[in-house]
């Protein structure tokens, strides 16, 4: 149900635990140390594995503990075939729907419904569609940076 199919020519399943910036380093170690060679996991990925016409590829499983994030425990599974990531699934993730009880609404930035002209607005930074380095020179943000206010 939580499976996300990014690509379906997979033959090899790799389990990777990840998430949480603080766990980055440790998850590497987990991946390289424990990764080696475990049979493909027999859960939801079995279908695509079985359906594959290449049964001879070696498989490796990366496992680790579920990582705590500010949204709750998160675990992700990544499938790799021929050195290419072919599938990414979410094994465990706190409900993304509804209101997250953890979030302190008071701490959140809230949109203010006021419409102002750039000329009259006292603004520090501008959020807009991604500006390229070329486009930056003409952008409002560059004017702010230039002004050094």
């Amino acid at each position, binding site marked *: 149900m939580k499976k996300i199919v*990014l*690509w379906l020519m997979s033959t090899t399943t790799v389990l990777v635990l*990840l*998430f949480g*910036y603080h766990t*980055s380093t440790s*998850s590497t170690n987990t*991946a390289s140390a424990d*990764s080696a060679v475990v049979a493909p996991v027999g859960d939801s990925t079995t279908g695509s594995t079985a359906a594959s016409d290449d049964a001879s590829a070696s498989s490796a499983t990366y496992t680790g503990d579920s990582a705590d994030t*500010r949204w709750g425990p998160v675990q*992700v599974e*990544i499938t*790799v075939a*021929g*050195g290419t*990531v072919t599938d*990414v*699934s*979410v094994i465990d*993730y706190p409900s*993304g*729907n*509804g*209101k*997250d009880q953890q*979030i302190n*609404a008071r*701490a*959140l*930035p*809230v*949109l*203010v*419904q*006021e*419409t*102002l*002209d*750039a000329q009259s*607005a*006292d*603004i*520090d*930074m*501008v*959020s*807009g*569609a*991604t*500006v*390229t*380095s070329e*486009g930056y020179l003409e*952008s*409002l*943000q560059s004017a*702010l*940076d230039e002004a*050094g*206010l």
Partner: protein
Amino acid sequence: MTGPTARYVEQVMGMPISLALRGRHTDDTAARSAWAEAIDVLREADRVFSTYRADSFVSRLNRGEIDLADCPPEVAEVLGLGALAEQQSGGAFAVRRDGVLDPSGVVKGWAVERAAAALHALDGTDSCLSAGGDLLCRTADPDGAPWRIGIEDPRDPGRVLAVVPVRDGAVATSGTAHRGQHLVDARTGRAPEGIASVTVLADSLTWADIDATAAYAQGQGAPAWLATRPGRTGLVVWADGSTSTVTGDLSEAWTTLAG
């Protein structure tokens, strides 16, 4: 007020990185080295993730030259975020297109959030770090003067449509005002119609950025989808100039304002 604001700009990852600092460390050694550190984090993210660099880990992954295990753990982390985003957007957002891995929709916000850590370590200092219009704000004093963030008018990028005060949080905008039509609904491969930009406010820039892109890809469905996202508020600007605001606490509530 907290004194004059110091500004720094540098081009990284093909986009302008702008920093505003105010408070105790704005133009001293500590400030400059924090800025250098932040830029280093962004450059490193570019080296790892850029699809424009043939030697990046992601490019080599795409060519099948290396395995995920050969990559820094951040690659798996970012792909995992992309997977979550794809799941939670019903497939409108994806980190693969035409069989090619392209996590750039995740990387920017994620990288800026990491880069900002160096700035947040400056005591008594407010920071606002922007990468091409997606930004992360912090005030040293939780009750201090907020940063005032203008939301660009996608139809006239020299103007702002709204101003949002932000103390601790992120603002990200997706649209096509500067780069032309590059955002598509991953389910159809087509650009959404009728929508000009989506701005999302959240506590995390990683998710503000992802959600802005994912909402934009959904076109007309953007406000309704954003309203389901925990802790997000936002502004959708339509091609005709009208706007919809999404407020996080009023679940399905979004109101259409005159443009």
